[in-house]
């Protein structure tokens, strides 16, 4: 038993923080009118590639770093903290789909390319109405002359425009299955949405008879397996963001003076900040547990992932809202970064379903497996 981070995790986190505080640049986004096009996706990606981050959890056998989910959580926490913008979320998601549902040949080829930084991916699972449950899809796959083609539409696909290939969940005659399509195919249309969180590229994608390569091992477990990992990614980002926003708020409360004292001397402010400190502690604890449980294949893994995501994304919203209040009017300007975090927080609480949705998952798991209540 050891519920604390060890020195290697702390070192990884500190190195990532040092790197990102030098390289991640929000200033272009703080110019009114900025969009995700100014977020610096490509430049940041190239730097991440130098560090091997695209292959951070790709098994070594396929050319990745083969690090643990806890290591990943350390890095994602720092990305969340800095809001570094790059197509990492999409690439991780796509790579997990390949890892879980691809054939051995596909894994060798594709994961190797991902790890080398030569292949960027996106994962398209969301229906037009926002559902992303692995069971429903607005994309249909049919076989023509022995080859698969897909048609239909996905909403809210993260990093689709930046991707080289898109992994898409489509319905065949009898089941849901994952396929790979080329982003560059002329029958693929990607619209970058005016997503309010401009640190993240979110797109609508449509397919009009696009030739598609099936991931042959897809089954009903594929999506839940990927989703649990994506919960971890978002929760780790959120927890990292919470920590940063809390620190910024505390610092501001010590400096800003009103009525002859720092505003942090007023209890209305102090007490809010104390509450945020509690949220920060819990969010981080949840992320560490989820990362560990996923890495170990522990029986609590799905539960832990849903817990981490529901808690961290809800807490992130509270913290970023409070942050703007404590800053006063300046916190409401485009030129300050407060709103970037506020928008990221909202986005993290919607992309994979709302916190309420994950709480329902938690309860369903407990109903199904009462032993989890005493584990």
């Amino acid at each position, binding site marked *: 038993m050891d519920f604390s981070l060890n020195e290697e995790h702390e070192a990884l986190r500190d190195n990532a923080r040092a790197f990102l505080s030098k390289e991640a640049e929000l200033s272009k986004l703080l110019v009114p009118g900025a969009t995700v096009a100014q977020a610096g996706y490509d430049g940041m990606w190239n730097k991440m590639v130098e560090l091997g981050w695209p292959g951070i959890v790709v098994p070594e056998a396929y050319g990745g770093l083969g690090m643990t989910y806890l290591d990943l959580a350390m890095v994602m926490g720092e990305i969340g903290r800095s809001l570094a913008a790059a197509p990492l979320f999409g690439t991780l998601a796509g790579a997990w789909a390949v890892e879980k549902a691809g054939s051995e040949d596909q894994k060798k080829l594709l994961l190797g390319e991902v790890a080398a930084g030569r292949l960027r991916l996106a994962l398209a699972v969301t229906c037009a109405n926002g559902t992303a449950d692995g069971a429903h899809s607005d994309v249909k796959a049919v076989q023509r002359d022995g080859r698969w083609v897909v048609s239909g539409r996905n909403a809210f696909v993260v990093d689709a425009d930046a991707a080289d290939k898109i992994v898409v969940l489509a319905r065949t005659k009898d089941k849901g299955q994952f396929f790979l399509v080329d982003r560059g195919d002329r029958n693929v249309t990607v619209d970058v949405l005016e997503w309010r969180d401009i640190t993240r590229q979110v797109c609508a994608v449509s397919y009009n008879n696009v030739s598609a390569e099936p991931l042959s091992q897809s089954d009903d477990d594929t999506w839940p397996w990927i989703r649990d990992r994506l919960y971890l990614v978002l929760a780790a980002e959120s927890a990292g963001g919470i920590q940063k926003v809390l620190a910024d708020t505390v610092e501001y409360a010590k400096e800003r003076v009103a009525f002859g004292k720092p505003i942090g001397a007023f209890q209305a402010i102090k007490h809010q900040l104390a509450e945020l400190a509690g949220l920060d502690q819990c969010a981080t604890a949840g992320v560490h547990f989820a990362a560990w*449980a996923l890495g170990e294949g522990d029986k609590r893994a799905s539960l832990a992932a849903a817990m981490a995501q529901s808690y961290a994304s809800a807490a992130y919203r509270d913290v970023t809202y409070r942050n703007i209040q404590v800053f006063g009017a300046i916190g409401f300007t485009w030129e300050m970064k407060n709103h970037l975090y506020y928008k990221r927080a909202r986005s993290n609480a919607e992309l994979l379903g709302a916190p309420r949705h994950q*709480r329902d998952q938690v309860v369903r798991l407990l109903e199904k497996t009462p032993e989890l209540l005493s584990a």
Partner: protein
Amino acid sequence: MDFNLPGEDDPRRLAVRKWFEANPSPSYAQLAKQGYVVPHWPEPWGLGAEPELQLIIDQEIERAGIVHPMTFNVIAINQCGQSLLTHGTKDQRQKFLPPALACEERWCMLFSEPSGGSDLGNLRTTARRDGDHYIINGQKIWNSMANKSQIGVLIARTDPEAPKHRGLSVFLIDMKTLGVLVRPIVDMTGEEPEYNEVFLTDVKVSADRLLGKEGDGWRIVMEQLQTERMHMTKPGAVWGGGPTARELMSGLIQTGKINDPLIRDEAGKLFVEGELLRLLSLRNLSNRINGKPAGAEGNIGKMLASPHGQNLSDLAKRSQGAAGMVRDRSVLPLPPKEYGLFDNWDYAYWFAPAATLGVGTQEILKNAVAERVLGLPRELDPTASLPFNQAKLVKPKGAN
């Protein structure tokens, strides 16, 4: 990291279990002799156990269906006994610890006074040195278990000319000493009275009952409060004890109440929060195993755990509708287990308002977190630097 608790086949656990098999219903004295009451203390009281062994022993006590001695005599064993170890003389330890650990003598905390609980430093009870004795006069209030205790840990003012926090000292008094009058106060649950008022009239206490040095009182009680808060970071319904969100969930599932969508969502939320609080309290334990210094986590933990516990019993109650207003212990079932005092949701619910009062109100805890964890400016007490006998004459600004 490794989130597994020491396993069923852990050799340390097997050794403890073997002892319980050989001693199926041990007395508290036997547990104390075995070192199982305070395993983390040094010998001869404990086993000098690392926190993991401590956890195992606590779990095995629970498994054996025994009310933990800590539950029975928490003030002696948790908060105050610890300060006897650090600040007590050898004679004091020999005299007071064995009966305390064996639960033959219960202790109570005589801190709060009518002059204020949060602003404890404002206390009026005096201890005047008289040869090899002290003479104590004053009144204490809200003292849990004072009516059932043999020993009282009392803080009193030994130097009225020193500033309010400096002239204080701690004494271990016999509750049956002449001049000590204990009157139970019926709390709003109307159950077993939780607390008392204690009148002290010319109580003569031998000087060897002074804990630490004269003037050390504030530091000692602050340490005790920190230890006590740490103990309360567990996610139980009241002050860390009683049923948790796990048992709430289990009851709601068992009764089908969980199918109400609003209850379902709230229960999910509380379950998640409870699990995270559990992780935090175990992380504190691990930090100690790993030699990381204990910080102010007890304050954050209690700040989170007290309202969490209140929300648990609140949902348990609400899930029962009007039936929850009837004094009935079994409306929402609890899985069989040793829960200590709060072994039903009804009592836990009616007791709940006290959880954010005792051992530091929610406001005091938020101040502590803001100031000690986040480093925000400290609240100023305009009377803190005055000699106490002048400070108590200062008329507060804004008061009628």
